[in-house]
């Protein structure tokens, strides 16, 4: 039964991914492509779909991993302060006039910010020879508040027009997607995804508690550190590709769990695929519903996903990570 459910979820996701490139404000017939349409597909739609898929994969997978490591169903990839660090770094970069790298400026500063915050959160979460889930969580929440308040201060005192762009980006903006960032995002996200999938058994064991994980033959601190690194890689890359997009990292793993259970060997890859497909659909709706205006994907994901999640929550008995 569960194999049928997994296959169905994967099949639907693949269908969405393969058709979404042809859909949008203007529907393109793949069998009768004109030169202009080919150009639109290759230089606008395809990179945007790929960025949406990569970000969705990163958020879906890292949400599943974090909820397991922190043993907390409320955890999402942004709870560790990585997104707020990225946003603050990008804003600081813009204010200090770091335009030297052209369109790379925002993503690069965001990635540097996200990486530094990952290390700082890891350092705060480290105690007695290892990462402690409760310390990680609290350090992430504390740093998030600090960074967001500094960011708001910067925005309120700045009259710079570029801050508007930074704000848009902070709330998730896929319209800037092009081919230039995709190879970097791909490398970081697939590396993070491969690490997390390869440590899925260890994550299952960690969910039973550190002592049982040790008894089952895992080095608890090493496994937790590897999983944390995988999340930091995926989240940092995702934030720098298209800003912070809510909902996916928090709720997609829960929705997937409702269907296929909590075994991380299946949950992580399926959450990744569903996250990718879901963000693709959300972006498609966001850009098609009232063109030429675009609704940010983060808003669309929450508007479609939340009622469905609440419906499932009402229907199911067992709720847990």
């Amino acid at each position: 039964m569960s194999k049928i459910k997994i296959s169905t979820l994967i099949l639907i996701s693949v269908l969405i991914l393969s058709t979404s490139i042809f859909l949008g404000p203007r529907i393109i017939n793949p069998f009768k492509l004109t030169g202009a349409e080919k150009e639109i597909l290759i230089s606008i739609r395809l990179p945007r779909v790929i960025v949406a898929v990569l970000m969705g994969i990163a958020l879906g997978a890292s949400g599943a991993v974090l909820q397991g490591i922190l043993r907390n169903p409320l955890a999402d990839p942004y709870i560790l302060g990585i997104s707020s660090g990225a946003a603050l770094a990008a804003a600081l970069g813009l204010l200090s006039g770091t335009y030297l790298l052209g369109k790379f400026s925002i993503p690069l500063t965001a990635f540097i910010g996200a990486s530094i915050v990952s290390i700082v959160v890891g350092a705060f979460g480290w105690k007695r020879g290892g990462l402690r889930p409760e310390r990680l969580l609290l350090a992430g929440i504390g740093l998030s508040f600090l960074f967001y308040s500094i960011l708001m201060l910067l925005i309120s005192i700045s009259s710079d027009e570029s801050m508007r762009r930074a704000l848009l980006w902070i709330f998730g903006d896929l319209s800037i997607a092009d081919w230039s960032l995709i190879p970097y995002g791909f490398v970081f996200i697939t590396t993070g995804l491969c690490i997390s999938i390869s440590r899925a058994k260890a994550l299952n064991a960690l969910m039973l508690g550190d002592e049982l994980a040790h008894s089952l033959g895992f080095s608890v601190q090493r496994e937790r550190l590897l999983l944390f690194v995988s999340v930091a890689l995926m989240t940092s890359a995702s934030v720098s590709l298209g800003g912070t997009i809510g909902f996916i990292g928090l709720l997609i793993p829960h929705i997937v769990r409702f269907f296929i259970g909590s075994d991380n060997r299946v949950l992580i890859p399926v959450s990744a695929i569903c996250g990718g497909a879901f963000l693709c659909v959300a972006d498609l709706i966001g850009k098609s519903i009232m063109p030429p205006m675009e609704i940010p994907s983060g808003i669309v994901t929450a508007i479609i996903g939340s009622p469905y999640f609440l419906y499932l929550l009402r229907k199911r008995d067992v709720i847990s990570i």
Partner: protein
Amino acid sequence: MSSVYNHPILELYNVGFQYFRNKKFINNLTFSVGNGEFIGLLGANGSGKSTILKLASGILKPSDGHVKLWDKPLQSYKNKDRAKLLCYLPQLLDINVPFKVRDLVSMGLYPYSIPPGITVDEALELVGLKEKSESYIANLSGGERRRTFIAMTLLQGAGLLLLDEPLANLDIKYQIEIQRLLRELKEKKNISIIMALHDINMALQFEKVMLIKDGKVLGIGNPETVLTGNLLKEAFDVGIEIKKQDSGGPYISYENNF
């Protein structure tokens, strides 16, 4: 059952341990476990039972002395190899683990790339939970949950089980059930078991008892020689005596019956 191999499979020698920034909790702890032995680790709350089991399983590292498993330092084993020989079941088991019985039990195979023989169904059969294999752990009773984790340890196939109060908070029915199951396993598979407990009645059922207080061994041996009035008073700070019933069975008499 007499064991063929009489050399200790687990040896703690002059082990010392202190929790972070606290004074030394365990000092010069020395004891060993032979093949096929079933040892009751008895002591009051806070006497160090869990700490001793965690030192023996490698979860805690001793500050002095050494722990040997099959004549090799415990820390020299790779994690997976150690898990095939030694299994620790903590006292507090998370009841909110989101797994089904079958999925949780099958985690016992994690240390192996090739399953060691016993199947998930056989393990579930042994603990009497085959009909609950598709239930979620959170929906089971306390006794069933314990038995699920015991099935997982059986699947893990380790020859030495370190069980931290597996009978705590269970109805008497389940206490008897789990004890019987462990004794059967010991007989069938010649596994060695150390079980922490603080119920003296329960300790009387063991072939070998280790009585501890403040991380020190007060006595080790058969219950008649270890569970004496003096040692029990020292261990529990209450006058306790083991008396014989007319039928021959032992019973516990307290200093002040209330």
